[in-house]
């Protein structure tokens, strides 16, 4: 069996050194033909050298591992080497031959080699969508817990759970806490909505409310609702016509 022509892609020198060293112990399976320390070089190298196998780190500055996979035209066999936690990486089982969780032992590397020995044929075309979805899931698993707000000469942190709602006017977004304190933010309501998608609901072009602090929902005419927030002022907010279905969806939960 011919050894796999291999390219090592990792931004950290020690990681590359280690893979090199370990691979040197299995010359009949792995033949290292190149290294890349960032995503751009990696793409070029892969497309030009057309290796059989790449050891790919996911977390790299600039282009990350996923970006690299999206951009290459050639499809090598992929072994992910990364520091995500094991449980998450198991989701990659179906998508790659093996993954190496840093720091990995020599024995673990050997296990990977064994899999490669048994593996025949080429890697199927990646289902990039699925990969991207899983990556996004891994990325976004951490819930946002605080929002930095510039207040005078300093930055204060407002806990997300303390925010009652965001209100947008022409230029700014105002954050209103459940204790009726308000802060001006530079960020757009849309960005807030994206980041806080799990905890907040957009009910109007100008309002983004904390789902956990909605106290009552009253039907209003014209496909609108009136929401009463469980904050200090018991704020009443009227939803926009276009957001009717979002709120209905919330009620059905």
């Amino acid at each position: 069996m011919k050894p796999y022509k291999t390219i090592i892609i990792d931004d950290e020198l020690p990681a590359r050194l280690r893979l090199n060293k370990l691979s040197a112990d299995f010359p009949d399976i792995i033949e290292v033909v190149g290294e890349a320390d960032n995503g751009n070089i990696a793409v070029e190298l892969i497309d030009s050298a057309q290796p059989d196998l790449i050891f790919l780190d996911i977390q790299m500055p600039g282009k990350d591992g996923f970006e690299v996979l999206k951009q290459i035209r050639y499809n090598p066999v992929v072994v992910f080497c990364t520091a995500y936690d094991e449980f998450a990486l198991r989701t990659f089982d179906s998508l790659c031959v093996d993954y190496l969780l840093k720091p990995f032992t020599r024995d673990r590397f050997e296990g990977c080699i064994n899999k490669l020995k048994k593996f025949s044929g080429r890697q199927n075309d990646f289902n990039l969508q699925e990969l991207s979805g899983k990556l996004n899931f891994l990325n976004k698993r951490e819930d946002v817990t605080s929002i930095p707000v510039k207040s005078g000469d300093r930055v204060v942190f407002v806990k997300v759970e303390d925010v009652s709602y965001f209100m947008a006017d022409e230029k700014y977004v105002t954050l209103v806490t459940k204790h009726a304190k308000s802060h001006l933010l530079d960020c757009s309501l849309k960005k807030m909505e994206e980041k806080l998608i799990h905890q907040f609901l957009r009910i109007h072009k100008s309002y983004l409310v904390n789902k956990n602090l909605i106290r009552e929902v009253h039907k209003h005419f014209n496909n609108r609702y009136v929401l009463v927030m469980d904050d200090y002022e018991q704020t009443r907010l009227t939803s926009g016509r276009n957001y009717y279905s979002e709120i209905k969806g919330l009620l059905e939960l």
Partner: protein
Amino acid sequence: MMKQVIFISAFILIVLVRLGAQGNNTYDIITWKVIGERLFDGSKTKATRYEEDIRIILKGAESSQDSAVVIELIDELNQLIQTINVSLVKEDGNFFIIREPEYSVITNRTFQKIVGSQILNTRLQLNAGDFNKPKEVSPLYYFVFRNLTKIYEPRHGKSEYGGIFDSGKPETAKLHEIDKNLIRKLYSENFYSELRKNMIAIRGFFYYIHLRYQNYLVYAPLIGGILISVFLFFYFLSGGAVGRKNLSYKRYLLNGILISVSIALLYVLIMMPQQSGLLIGFHILKTMKVSFINSLILGFLAASIMFLIEKEITKRISNIIQKQVLIFLSTFFSILITLLIIMAAFIVFYSTKENISIHFENTFYLAFIAILVAGLRIVFNILNLRIQSMVNQKDVEIARMRELKNQAELNALYSRINPHFLYNSLNSIAGLAHLDPDKTERMAISLSSLFRYSINKEDKTYATVEEELEMVTKFLEVEKLRFDEKLQYTIKAEEHLLRKEIPRFLIQPLVENALKHGLAKITEQGILKIEVKQEQNDLIIKVYDNGPDFPDEPVTGYGLQNLHDKLQLLYGDDAVLNWYNGKNKFIQVTLKGQL
């Protein structure tokens, strides 16, 4: 201006009331006076009368003429009486008129069953002859009229109008217009409101109050006395008497006069027997005038003497028990001496034998009071001391609890080395092991001392700038394993700041952030700068990096919330965290007023 308005309104009101009281009947005034004197004795607020229909039963009538007389009387009464009906009945009566047979002569007997101010039953035993007399001088009329109510001795003498309600004997009484008027008023619907109006107009407000509410009024001095005692009790217990500066002369005078005047007032209020006199108020004032001046002088002198003595005591004695004993003696003797002085003054100016003996008597009482006052003073002092010590104890407890809470919160916020950092570092070190053993050793040791610092066995909240920067350097050395040439860092700290104390793990998270979110995100050369400097009275820590700008949106994983909370706990508003984007992007912690 206000005072004048009030006076004028009051005057007008009084005039109106008096005018309103003028009845159509010229006898009205006398009638009311009689009502006031005869129908009330101060034991009840209401005048006695029948409240239910009067059902008269005549017994022993021999001829129809007897009953005719009674019927005529009943008619007369019904014209006068508004509130109830009078009638002659055969059974179930509540007013018995018993005509004794001709041959028996009895002194007319009357019997009334009264509950509260309501007559329930009346029994009259009359002689036969009483029924024959003409109306004006009829004993029948005399007794029936008088038994429609209850009559008392007048307090201010008889009215001398010669009527039924005025005389004690039927022989001297004549049925007068006033008598009828009296019954008419007594048994009218608005008797009490008319009573009030007219009594106030004719006799004055105090008379009216005294008339109806005397039995309550009697308690007023007692209640007043109790209120004053309660007030004094709380005043002295609250330590209000002591004030901020313990031994100020003003305080002594104030307390001395307060006590002596209160004692005089209490004496008058409580010791004074329940006067049935109308003008208790005036009486009190009269007695007070003399005691008032006496007590002022007493208070002033005694307090002054006490002040002088106790100033010396406090200077020399600190033992609490000894101090209290001496204060007791000082109080007692100060009062006694003052009394003697006042007495001597009296003897000199008003020397008559009478006066002197009275004064000697009084002195015994007052000496007793002096002991009482001295004793009470000690009691209050001790009580106050105990309360004070309890409060102090509570304060200490609260302070301790607050400290514990702070400590717990700080502990919760304690910084750990980021586990991800650990993975990566160990991985890098493992990779180095065969290639460069010396470097491996150095890195492993750096990592280990970083952890030792993080564990913080001694529970210290603060570390010197030097110690913190040493740790940051070790951290960066290890990180350089991963970043290699891509990481370039400089650390600058002003010499005199190196020994300054700052919170542990203040700088490392900032640097870690700069690497994780800054330098790790770029592909070109990463530059990191750490500065510790002084600006006016503030200690400034700045960390520059050339990575991407701080985002405007909410973020996770920055660990800055944690840092921010810790700074809040330790410095409150004196710690400022801020960051600046742009060409020289940096994050800064300012510790205000630390230098």
